[in-house]
């Protein structure tokens, strides 16, 4: 079992008035990555979210939490239920080695930011049994005005120009 899900508590008496606070949700952090970066038709790109505490989560194309945004040729990697902390995002294209693309991602109670700029998150409780979305049902026209965060694989100056 994940050690982070083992919680140490003190019991209470009936006439106590204090409640122990448990925070039971995180944010959903969505990482857009340009599709088919290496012109590989069998793309198996992976994105890793590394916490400063040593935790690591990896999503790869084909996972339920990765969806294609065909209108913008983006894969959206959705890391669910991310707790507060400092993170580094890395990508691995095909069988190449991991390459950091964004370090110092800060997740606080306000959401996720990088360099003071907000990243795309959702504060809704993340339910793991939510069915994956069907890309075919997404109308690309509906996505044009949707803010999905920065292109994390773009150079910083390009991100600033976009911002």
């Amino acid at each position, binding site marked *: 079992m994940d050690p982070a899900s083992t*919680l140490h508590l003190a019991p*209470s008496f009936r006439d106590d008035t204090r*409640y122990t*606070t*448990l925070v039971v*949700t995180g*944010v959903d952090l969505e990482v857009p990555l340009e599709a088919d970066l290496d012109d590989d038709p069998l793309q198996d790109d992976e994105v890793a979210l590394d916490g400063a505490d040593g935790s690591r989560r990896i999503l790869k194309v084909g996972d339920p939490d990765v969806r294609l945004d065909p209108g913008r040729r983006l894969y959206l990697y959705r890391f669910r239920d991310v707790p507060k902390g400092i993170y580094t995002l890395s990508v691995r294209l095909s069988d190449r080695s991991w390459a950091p693309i964004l370090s110092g991602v800060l997740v606080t109670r306000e959401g996720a930011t990088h360099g003071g700029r907000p990243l795309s998150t959702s504060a809704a409780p993340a339910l793991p049994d939510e069915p994956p979305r069907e890309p075919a049902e997404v109308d690309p026209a509906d996505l044009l005005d949707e803010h999905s965060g920065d292109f994390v694989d773009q150079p910083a100056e390009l991100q600033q120009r976009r911002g």
Partner: protein
Amino acid sequence: MARQPQVTSGRAIGTPAPGVRRITRRAPGNPSPGPARPPASVTRPARPPTRTRGEVASGVGGLPAVASLGGVGMTTRHVAKQGETVPGIAARFGFADYRVVYDAPGNAALKQRRPDPNVLAPGDVVEIPDAAPKEVAGRSGQAHLFRVDVRPQILRLVLRDHAHAPLAGVSYLISFEGGADSSEGSTDAGGKLEAPLPLGARSATLEVLGRSYTLLVGHLDPLHDAPDGGVGGLQARLRNLRYYSGPIDGIAGPATRIALGIFQHDHQLPADGEPGDATLRKVEEIHGS
């Protein structure tokens, strides 16, 4: 000289925990047939001898034998281990009301240092007073039912989301160890829930929002005056608040400092990662214990 039959005092002193062996005191004037022992009427020293009982005295099932030695004058000291609370220790020594132990004069310093009897640090010494005998009249040859009034304990929680907003109307299930007892329902408008704690329960499983958490009841360490400097207690609270996901090892490493720094950032404190007084007060306030 003819050997006399052994007689026990037979005085009720409360109901010990299940499986606990009751020790009875020989009545004066009925010497043991074994090695010679001083009779109970021997003058005792003015200051009763003290013995420490941590792992020492064990009864049935690993529980300590009940020190039902009213009048013997032996003060027992119990060294708290991880996961122990004053009410739990008191119950194991046969006291239905923990306040008999917590309010004992010998625990005045402990009470001052640990204002919450449910939050002890490993190594805290709890003095166990002599049990006061209680006599109950009853006809012989009949069965008698004795009821012990134990002060019930509960889990009192408030569930919050990532932004610390209360999670109202969220279904939960708490299953206590062994699976015999459980509590389920929905949080109220303030995200609060209360679950009665079965006697002796020290762990439970909380299922909420599709996730499962192991709750170690009584394992919360204090933030102050602890052998590890309060770091373990800090880590546990930061974990409950989802700032920290590393081990609760009492070591203030980088992960702990980062977690504390983000907590400080979220609560408008200087984000230096140092557990200063203001930060610890805020952690205690936000966590609720």
